[in-house]
């Protein structure tokens, strides 16, 4: 084959050169000019809204240039020592690990920290705290409870139930009328955990207190301990299994979250145990469906009614950030009340500040009175570290497995994890 001896090395050199140029150019982008603030936001629905805010902010001043980052891996960033400068994302157990180890800087001196409702700030502390610091500021809270189809309820002449007895009466009336009361999607384990499990347990047990005690018991959690999954949660989880057995669609074990949204949008069931994130999915099929929400009653006292909440978005600035000042300025911009209100109105979230605008969307209005009086709990399934496959155990219960053995497995896992840590 006639071939110049130098051609192949030349091709190699050319391709390497291309790569080097690309990386060199990337390097240039970081130096000089305004201070760059890398803003991590991973909620896809929120990206367009925040993109607009970012361009507005970048145009309004020239000291700081904010760049949206929705794809970086956080763990890798913290490990490498170059995490994003400002994070605004779902706050949960995984995020709490960073704050517990002091990786997030103190924001308590910011005026924004003063405006956060104390009972909402308390939700952050339920996961973990770092002495002397307020490092996480809640931006938006999602309240979740039973989603119900108002048209079906009206057609059947049903009222929103306030006690467990009324709930059973509603379910029976619906069954008699040939309507499926609850739509179950048990093929996706998380829907069992965040729906049926969280609502039944949260309506019956003091969730934060329960996990506090479990934490202090640590390795001693087991059949002998005073508080345990097996003992404390036996009743609500038993009720959950009963509700599932009697009042869900018969094909629930083979249905996924997507199937559930579609079926519920088509009016195939009267109630759906999902959070406000499902509204957007349901609206893709039936944008005008009349929906409402109410907390799942688990006792005979209407005073016990509570809704499930989770911190949808929370802001933090890592200690390792190179541009904390710029990040703080942008954080203040994001925490302007009208900016927050607009986000919450669009995403069906609840405000986290003392001066937040009240919610108006009829779909989540049913939870307002409970949110305002802080009658809420964080989902008990979210307080279990992800190394314990709790959702899968609960899926087993939903499919008819033994309640007691599933809960004692949870106890065993909890104690084992405590021993390892």
């Amino acid at each position, binding site marked *: *084959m006639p*071939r110049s*001896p130098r051609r*192949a*090395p030349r*091709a*190699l050199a050319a*391709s*390497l050169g*291309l*790569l*080097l140029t*690309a*990386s060199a150019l*990337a390097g240039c*982008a*970081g130096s000089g000019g305004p201070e760059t603030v*890398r803003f991590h936001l*991973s909620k*896809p*629905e929120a*990206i367009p809204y925040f993109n607009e805010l970012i361009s507005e902010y970048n145009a309004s001043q020239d000291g700081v240039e904010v*760049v*949206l*980052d*929705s*794809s*970086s*891996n956080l763990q*890798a*960033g913290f*490990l*490498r*020592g*170059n995490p994003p400068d400002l994070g605004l994302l779902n706050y949960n157990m995984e995020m709490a690990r960073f704050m517990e180890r002091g990786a997030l800087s103190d924001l308590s001196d910011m005026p924004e920290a003063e405006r956060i409702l104390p009972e909402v700030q308390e939700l952050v502390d339920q996961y973990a705290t770092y002495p002397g610091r307020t490092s996480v500021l809640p931006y938006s809270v999602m309240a979740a409870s039973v989603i119900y189809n108002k048209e079906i309820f009206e057609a059947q002449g049903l009222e929103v139930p306030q006690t467990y007895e009324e709930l059973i009466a509603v379910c029976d009336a619906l069954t008699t009328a040939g309507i499926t009361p609850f739509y179950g999607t048990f093929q996706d384990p*998380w829907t069992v955990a965040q729906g049926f499990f969280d609502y039944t347990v949260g309506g019956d047990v003091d969730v934060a207190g329960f996990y506090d005690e479990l934490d202090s018991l640590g390795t001693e959690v087991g059949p002998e301990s005073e508080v345990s999954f097996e003992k404390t949660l036996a009743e609500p989880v038993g009720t959950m299994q009963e509700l599932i057995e009697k009042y869900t669609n018969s094909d629930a074990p083979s249905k996924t*979250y*997507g*199937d559930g*949204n*579609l079926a519920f949008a088509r009016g195939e069931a009267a109630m759906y145990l999902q*959070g406000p*994130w*499902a509204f*957007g*999915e349901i609206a*893709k*099929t039936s944008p005008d469906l009349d929906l409402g929400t109410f907390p799942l009653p688990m006792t005979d006292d209407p005073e016990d009614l509570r809704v499930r909440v989770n911190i949808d978005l929370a802001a933090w600035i890592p200690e390792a950030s190179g541009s904390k000042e710029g990040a703080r300025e942008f954080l203040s911009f994001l925490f302007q009340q009208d900016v927050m209100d607009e986000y919450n109105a669009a995403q069906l979230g609840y405000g986290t500040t003392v001066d937040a605008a009240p919610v108006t969307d009829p779909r989540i209005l049913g939870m307002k009175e409970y949110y305002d009086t802080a009658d809420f709990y964080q989902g008990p399934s979210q307080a279990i570290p992800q190394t314990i496959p709790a959702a899968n155990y609960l899926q087993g219960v939903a499919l008819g497995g033994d309640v007691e053995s599933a809960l004692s497995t949870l106890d065993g896992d909890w104690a084992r994890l405590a021993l390892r840590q």
Partner: protein
Amino acid sequence: MSVQPALVARDIDAAATAEGKGTRRRSRRGSEGRSGNSSWSLTIVLLLCAVTVVIPLYVTISMAFKTQSQSVDGNAFSLPAPFSVEGFVTAWTLTDYPRAFLVSILITAGSVVGTIILGALASFAISRNWDRRLFRWSFYYLLGAMFIPFPVVALPQIQLTGLVGLDNPLGVTLLHIMFQLSFSILLFTAFLRSIPAELEESARIDGASTWQTFWQLIFPLLAPMSATVGIFAFLASWNDFMMPSLITSDPSLQTLPVLQNIFQTQFSSNYNVSFASYLMAMAPAIIVFLFTQRWVMEGVTQGAVKG
């Protein structure tokens, strides 16, 4: 070109004749005679195999052109009605497609070229010095890397690349080459053993240096295996999610598969957008395969027979 169909037709005819002789008398019209029992069952098996490829491809394409409300209606097989390109538009803007595509292409091209050249050089050295202990052991050492999957060494790799400033596409390219090297060397050395040493000796008698022998004689001979190695490297690099997601720290230099991850979350599904995006990301792989499939098949059989 016009000769080829005729040739093919004659081949089929000949095959049918041969088959017809053994089982029953061949009918006068060739087309009926071809459909013997064995060829029918074979056709059905092949059809089923084809269906497993065609159906997902069909769903991908039709889903990509659906509107959002139709994409969640539970009928994956329905045709898009109305026909919509909103998925492509959203995917294009959300991933900043041209930039992400360029980054993906650069990483992939770098790792394909790097893998082929480094793999070929190393294999040449190893297979021609097999009698020396150092080279034999280095072969086993390099092969040992096949037993180390990336997730096992992910944490130290993240820290290391961060320390030396390689937390960018260049670092990803180097790591891709490294992880692809062991398998490529296995293929190359097996192939190199089938090339007679006399060829090289004749080149040396003509006065070629080792470098010249490699580039002018061996490397061209390795072409079919290089194609195979290149295709494996291409697929591994183009489709990789985990490594770029962990190694690249600048979000504007992220690859397509990682950026596409935002379309699918636990709480929401944008099937039309994701499938449009997958289709755009799949296109290069399919195009590359269309143009190189002959070499893939050749390379695989060559490796299989002579390795």
